[in-house]
């Protein structure tokens, strides 16, 4: 009785494990490479990054535990707040613009405006271009002497103002380029969502005497909302992590006018060799993104909602 009481659950547990292994062993075997990769290249660096944020380390000498000093240092660094401000501005401007433009483009494709197939390819083409190439391309376009934009201004008898060299304009210019490059991303997802809307809902709306605008408002928009909200979350995260365009086009300049958090992090780590401080920046970035995502999801941003007709 006593033996059974003790060994019973253990035997059950072992039995379940054995059965599970027999049933799913091959599946475990197949996911093992991906799981190992995930542990080695995602989990381990993440944990090590968190730990590193509590140390001072230049990549050469031994790590020195400094507690929260790296975080304090960040909050005292004069250029950190500029980087935060630029990152927030960039995120808000580009996310809103890309979603709005992407939505409008998706509607145009959905309602099959003339030439829609060409537009679909053209607008998505930018998304697959490497950002380094885009940076070089736009540097040439914005060249104040030989760029096509300068030539256009010349034709109008105007002088192209300094764009990348103007500290007040540079973040807006980078935002515009980012919007140009990535507006096709929400477009393609929203277009796919719109294409999935049953046609009979539109037909019902027509029977009810609904106008195009009403169809858009009462059918298209509610049914694409989950995708719209997911894309908004993704775009916000992508924009918050902006690095490549800044690195290829301005290196955070002129002065610190286009410094963003990821470039700040890069500078801290790979230029100043303050890997602890760089990790602290990364941790802050992670926390902000996690907070935003949690709040967003918690507010029901990604919850499927009922659609009333």
């Amino acid at each position, binding site marked *: 009785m006593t033996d059974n009481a003790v060994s019973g659950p253990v035997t059950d547990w072992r039995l379940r494990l054995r059965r599970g292994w027999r049933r799913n062993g091959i599946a475990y075997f197949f996911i093992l490479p991906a799981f190992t990769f995930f542990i080695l290249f995602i989990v381990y660096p993440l944990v090590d990054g968190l730990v590193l944020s509590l140390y001072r380390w230049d990549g*050469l*000498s031994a790590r020195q535990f400094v507690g929260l000093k790296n975080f304090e240092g960040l909050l005292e660094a004069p250029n950190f707040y500029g980087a935060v401000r630029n990152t927030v501005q960039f995120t808000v401007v580009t996310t809103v613009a890309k979603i709005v433009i992407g939505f409008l483009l998706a509607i145009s494709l959905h309602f099959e405006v003339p030439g829609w197939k060409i537009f679909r390819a053209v607008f998505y083409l930018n998304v697959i271009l490497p950002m380094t190439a885009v940076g070089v391309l736009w540097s040439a376009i914005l060249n104040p002497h030989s760029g096509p934009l300068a030539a256009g201004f010349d034709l109008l008898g105007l002088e192209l103002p300094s764009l990348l060299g103007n500290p007040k304009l540079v973040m807006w210019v980078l935002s515009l380029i980012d919007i140009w490059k990535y507006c096709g991303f929400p477009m393609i997802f929203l277009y796919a969502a719109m294409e999935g809307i049953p046609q009979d809902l539109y037909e019902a709306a027509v029977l009810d005497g609904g106008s195009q605008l009403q169809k858009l408002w009462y059918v298209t928009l509610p049914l694409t909302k989950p995708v719209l909200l997911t894309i908004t979350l993704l775009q916000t995260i992508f924009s918050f992590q902006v690095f490549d365009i800044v690195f290829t086009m301005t290196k955070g300049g*002129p002065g610190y006018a286009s410094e963003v958090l990821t470039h700040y992090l890069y500078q801290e780590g790979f*230029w100043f060799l303050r890997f602890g401080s760089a990790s602290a920046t990364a941790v802050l970035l992670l926390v902000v993104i996690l907070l935003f995502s949690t709040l967003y999801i918690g507010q029901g941003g990604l919850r499927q909602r009922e659609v009333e007709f």
Partner: protein
Amino acid sequence: MASKSISRRQFLKGVTATSAGALVLSACAAPAAAPAAEAPSESAAQPEAVTIRTLWSPGGIDNYMRALIDLYKEREPNVEFEINVIEQEQKRATEVTIMSNDGAPDFAWINFGSGLTDRLADAGVITPLNDYYEQYGWWDYLPDHLHTHEYNDQIYHFSVASVTVPMMWYNKSLMAQIGMDPPTTMDELYAWAEACHADDLEALAMGDRDGWPGFHMYQCLATRTVPLEDYEKILRFDKEEYYMGDYPGFEEAFQVMRDMETERVWAKGVLDMNDDQAKGLLFNGQAVAYESGIWVSGQAREALGEDSSFFMFPQIKEDIPFPLTASYADEYMLSSFSTVKDEVAAFFDFVLSKDGQKIVAKIGGGMPIRTDITVADLEGYADSTVGEVTEMFGSGEFPVTDEIVTFWPAELYAMLRNNVQAAIGGQKTAAEIVAEFDELAAKFRAGEA
């Protein structure tokens, strides 16, 4: 078509037969390999082959180093080189990781001003070179630069060339077209810029979007606003008595940067363009002049031919001798993990020979680091830019001073680079910038930075 299946027995037979065949073949091959095993006794007299692993960046360095290696291999056939070239942008990050383990290259070009030497030396991953300097008698070759290689009373760099920054390259035909000679004073510079604009030409092209050209230019200006004996102290934080941020010439150099923008000496878009785009303005005939280092000499001659020439930036203050310019050494460090340190040192002794220095001058656009090499020694190169510059330096008309960058903290370099941009763009006044440097210097002294 009917598929033919084989039984397990047939399959195993096949595998066994193939394995046996492979075994027989390898057994037959063995005697052929045997004589090779006896080879060492024949080649015992031959020196053992050595491979030296290297790391540097593309451009002039890559060109002259490859040429040097080709010549060296002719003389020392037992020495092989494994060449690694890495983009400047990634170099700093890579150098830290790659030098810190036993997979390190035997020697690596160190980016001047990167502030890495002290950290690498502290970590013990690079080797002091004092013994080699003694052994090969290099002390006398580069006395003006020696102190830039020192850290904790040890020498840590091989120095192969002196590189002048910056020089004002110009198009002789365009200069004649505007009817002016190269400016020698600031007033002449502003008048010259006006004359350029009157002829619908840009004056002096600089592309400071990436920061480094402005950094060089600032140093050029500082050598004209701060006396030579004080110049090396203006931005040096590592010794209490050194930093002279409150020296008026330090602030004045920032102000000149700004004045050159308001007076339109800089070609339009100085902060919008990168160096290549600015260079294009000179080469395409849109600008009369362009500032950059001596390393551009080959490209300038190629693009402009006989129209290519240069002048040194004008004198700014009457009491400071005209016209000082700045130079730095192209330098390399030796890994502590290297197993061929002596061979690397021998190679660098070759680079410092007259033959080696000719290649550095001719192909790399660097000036001989050896002060005992004259233009005449560089036979055949006297008509090149390097020859002209060497002659100038040799004549004493253009005294050279060193950039005090070797052990600059990276923070300082970044701050200077960014603040030069801020000065040109009018984001900050010269006084505000100096105040920032004062603050950083104070932090350094307090051990907080």
